[in-house]
């Protein structure tokens, strides 16, 4: 597979993953759009545009359509234009009264920002593009995991109290149902403590180190950690992590020789040139 094919494959993997993320809860989002029409909520904080059910519905449809088109589009200029338009649609969803809280759109926003940059550079056909794309993807993944970790650096999370209240008391999910069936409430509290510490530990370590790890190692770790977040807390979270898994997968597509070339290129750029 030549450099151009690998680059195109990387772009399409990210689009396929982001599309899957946006469609993971499609039935819920369709119902949400209907509900926002039927039960409007006036709230002075949000401008009218960002309270409108029409903004939500059209923003969601534009984002899904845009990423679908990015997946199949052939022209590099077309891909780039659609990427930026899709980013605008996702920006609207990140600010909408009925969607701002859903991290599905936050992670899709970052992934599409990566895609908009990547699509623009594909026209230039640079051999080191995939290498730099992986580096940028790693930086995005690190920052997003760091965001999850920092918000949990509190005594209430560390003790397990927050996860106990959110998940362990009554969340209907295979893991918590299983634990409730097997353990008494006191023991559940202890398990919640170690569950919380495991989550905080993994997110913190990844959120501080992922950017510095070798590409393939970072990709493999990300592809293990991200789905585990959904598998062990809520399958709905696949809508949040799928787009990030697409970004992580880019690291597996960088061939060893391109990484070596890119490093040599960087070293040459740093070496002072003699002017005889």
């Amino acid at each position, binding site marked *: 597979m030549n450099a151009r094919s690998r680059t195109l494959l990387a772009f399409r993997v990210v689009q396929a993953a982001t599309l899957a993320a946006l469609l993971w809860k499609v039935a819920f989002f369709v119902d949400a759009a209907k509900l926002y029409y039927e039960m409007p909520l006036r709230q002075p904080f949000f401008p009218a545009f960002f309270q409108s059910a029409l903004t939500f519905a059209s923003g969601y449809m534009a984002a899904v359509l845009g990423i679908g088109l990015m997946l199949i589009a052939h022209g590099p200029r077309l891909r780039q234009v659609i990427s930026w338009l899709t980013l605008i649609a996702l920006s609207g969803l990140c600010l909408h009264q009925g969607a701002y809280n859903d991290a599905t759109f936050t992670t899709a926003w970052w992934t599409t920002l990566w895609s908009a940059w990547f699509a623009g550079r594909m026209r230039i056909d640079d051999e080191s593009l995939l290498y730099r794309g992986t580096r940028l993807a790693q930086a995005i993944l690190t920052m997003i995991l760091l965001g999850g970790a920092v918000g949990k650096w509190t005594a209430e*999370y560390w003790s397990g109290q927050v996860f106990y209240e959110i998940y362990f008391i009554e969340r209907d999910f295979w893991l918590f149902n299983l634990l409730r069936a097997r353990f008494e409430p006191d023991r559940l509290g202890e398990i919640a403590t170690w569950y919380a510490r495991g989550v905080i530990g993994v997110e913190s370590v990844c959120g501080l180190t992922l950017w510095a790890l070798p590409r393939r190692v970072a990709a493999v770790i990300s592809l293990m950690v991200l789905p585990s977040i959904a598998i062990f807390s809520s399958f709905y979270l696949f809508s949040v992590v799928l787009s990030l898994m697409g970004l992580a997968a880019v690291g597996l597509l960088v061939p060893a020789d391109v990484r070596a070339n890119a490093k040599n290129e960087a070293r040459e750029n740093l070496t002072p040139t003699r002017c005889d």
Partner: protein
Amino acid sequence: MSNGRPDWTYRSIIVLIAAVAVWLLSMPFCPFIQRTALQRFHLQTDWFAAWAMQAPVPAMYSFHNRYRIESQPWDATFFERPVTGSINHFPVRLYTFAETRPLLLPQTNRRMLTLQSRYRGQTLTTRWTVIELKDGGYELVDEELTE
């Protein structure tokens, strides 16, 4: 740099990521950032534009967010107990998001929501009241109780 031309988009994204990372890493130590983040969660930022600028900052499952849904004081009866619990993030979503909006807004006996978020010594408490509009729909009125 590639093909001799600087890649300004790439550099801009790296700067944005670095800025978000610095903001996040400062949060445990900086009361200003803690207050700003809590106000973001409770939709209490002074300007919508300042709130919107924080949208790229990831905040999944952050802070200890608790809620209490109850009757308004003059409507309360002994039998209507408050509904309490914890929520993972952006607690005002109890009313704004489609998941719970249809369950909570029509509840005529519990139209007052009190939210409290805590992070490393900082606490923000807000109260939200639901008003049913004559022309259909609802209005959400809020007040900040403590900071």
